[in-house]
Each structure stands twice: as structure tokens, then as C-alpha cells.
């Protein structure tokens, strides 16, 4: 009997695959049978992810999807896809009063314009197969809540929340599904060396009803579900994975 959760035979593009959620997602997708194309900005770390992929015929492409040149170069070397997982993202905690156009541009370019325009180009070039599934890694921040210094990050994730609704509606005609995942805090080192201290994180961790931060695989498994045929009637949804954080 075939497994509806399998990704066997599917060609999946994962951005932000050099580390964190993107890395774990790529590895777990490969274990589920997918043929991966992984991309990220850091060649060395991307190739570390690549070496951990199970199976054959995967590809790695170093690219910065936050700039047009990077997007175009990436797309020019892509085959037809059955799925995209937009993981590439940054966070630079800063109080709202200190934001400026440069700061906002930087975060919006990586977190919103990059994934949105990448999908847009792939659609234009008809590089997405019928029944393809597009997954955006959004956040609880910007949809359900925010955090101190997180206004710009929340804005970028809120923007994703909006655009997936419109995309899902229009792409349904092509049987292409678009969904997002709303993770709570995941242990990925996203705040290493930032304005948020380790002590802040230790305190924050205590606020999660399930008693821990998420692990990258908590998100990766949900991505597999949304990429697989098991979720073929799910589009335009936000899957909340936050250890109960937003219940309080």
C-alpha cells in the first residue's frame, strides 16, 4: 500500500537550507524520498547539509534569494518542481523607534520579497508541476503576537500571511497549494550574537506550556505533511506549531 505521507518522486526546493529549520527540513524530506534542490547563501554550510541528505540525485545551489540577481540565477538552473519550502529568513531585533527604511528593506527583502518573487518567477516560467505544494515558514510573530524588538520581523511574517491567502486562491486553478507554518521559538541560534541575550531566552523558554522551545524537526515533519499528497485538500492555511505558547 502506498504511503500518503511519502515524498517519493517529488522534486522539492528548500531555501535557507544552510542551517536551522531549512537544514533539518531538507534532510527529513530526503528521508521521505524527495529529490532535493537545496539553496542557501553560505556555500560551506550548504554543502554540510548536502552531505547529510539521504539518497541520490540531489542538488545544491548557492544563491542569495533576497536580491534579484540571486533569484534569477537560481531559477535559471531549476527543473520543474513539485514543491517549494521557503525557509530563508532573518531577524534583527530592534525597537520600533529605531527602525528606518534601510532596516525594513533588509528584513523585507529576505523574509518577504525573496520568497514571494521566487515563487512568482517559478509560476511565470511554469516551473511548478500540477499538484505542487508551496510552504512558507512564517511565524507566530506577526500573525498571533510579537516580541520586544520584533516589529520589523513581525511585519515581514504578517506580509507572508497575507500573500499566501491571495496566492492560494489564484493558484488553486492550477491545483497548486500554498500554506504557511507558524512556528513558535525554535532552537536554531537565530538570536545568537544579537540584542537578545541567552538569559532572555532562558526566561522566554519557561513561557512555553509544553516546557521547551521547538526543535527544527518539529517543523520539518509538518513541512513533509504539507508537501505530501496527504494534505491535498489543504490550501491557504496557517499551521500553528508553537508548543502552546499562544494559548496563554
Amino acid at each position: 500500500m502506498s504511503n500518503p505521507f511519502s515524498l517519493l518522486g517529488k522534486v522539492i526546493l528548500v531555501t535557507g537550507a544552510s542551517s536551522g529549520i531549512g537544514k533539518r527540513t531538507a534532510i527529513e524530506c530526503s528521508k521521505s524520498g524527495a529529490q532535493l534542490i537545496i539553496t542557501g547563501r553560505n556555500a560551506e554550510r550548504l554543502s554540510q547539509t548536502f552531505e547529510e541528505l539521504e539518497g541520490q540525485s540531489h542538488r545544491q545551489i548557492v544563491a542569495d534569494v533576497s536580491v534579484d540577481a540571486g533569484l534569477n540565477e537560481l531559477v535559471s538552473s531549476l527543473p520543474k518542481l513539485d514543491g517549494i519550502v521557503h525557509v530563508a529568513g532573518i531577524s534583527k531585533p530592534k525597537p520600533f523607534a529605531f527602525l528606518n527604511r534601510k532596516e525594513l528593506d533588509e528584513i523585507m527583502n529576505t523574509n518577504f520579497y525573496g520568497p514571494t518573487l521566487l515563487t512568482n518567477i517559478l509560476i511565470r516560467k511554469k516551473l511548478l508541476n500540477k499538484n505542487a505544494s508551496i510552504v512558507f515558514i512564517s511565524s507566530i510573530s506577526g500573525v498571533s503576537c510579537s516580541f520586544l524588538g520584533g516589529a520589523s520581523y513581525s511585519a515581514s511574517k504578517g506580509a507572508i500571511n497575507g500573500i499566501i491567502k491571495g496566492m492560494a486562491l489564484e493558484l488553486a486553478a492550477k491545483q497548486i497549494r500554498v500554506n504557511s507554518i507558524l512556528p513558535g521559538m525554535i532552537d536554531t541560534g537565530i538570536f545568537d550574537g544579537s540584542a537578545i541575550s541567552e538569559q532572555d531566552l532562558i526566561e522566554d523558554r519557561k513561557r512555553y506550556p509544553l516546557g521547551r522551545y521547538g526543535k527544527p524537526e518539529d517543523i520539518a515533519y509538518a513541512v513533509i505533511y504539507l508537501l505530501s499528497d496527504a494534505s491535498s485538500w489543504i490550501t491557504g492555511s496557517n499551521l500553528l506549531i508553537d508548543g502552546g505558547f499562544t494559548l496563554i
Partner: protein
Amino acid sequence: MEIQKFVQNFAAQFEETDAEVFKSDTIFREIDEWSSLTALSIIAMVDEEYSVKLTGEDIRNSKLIEDIYQIVLSRID
């Protein structure tokens, strides 16, 4: 960079606390108004005024306003 100006910039991140409270040897964490948001504001102010990146750990490891000043001083190009 003068420490006096730095202390002024530091004080400017507070809304309620009287400016006279702020001296180079002030233990900033003991100011009633001190909070995680003030810490983020100090880091953002230092980035904006001095183009120096401080981390949350830098603030955590400092006690006096002058301690932060010294870190900033050591990182100015």
C-alpha cells in the same frame, strides 16, 4: 567619543527617570525604569550613534554605564 555625551545618549532612552540620575558609575540595572526594552534601545542607540554592534550579552555582562562605554570605545573603528 566623550563619556559625558555617551551618558546623555544613554539617559535619552529613558522616559521617566530624571537625567541627573545618570552618571558614568551608575549601576544601570538598579534604575527602576530599566527593562528588556531599554536594553534593546541602548543597543540600537549605540548602533545608530556609534556604528558599533553590541549584543544582549554585552549588556548583561556590564554593571556600570561606563562598562558599556568601554565596550563601545573598544569597538569603534
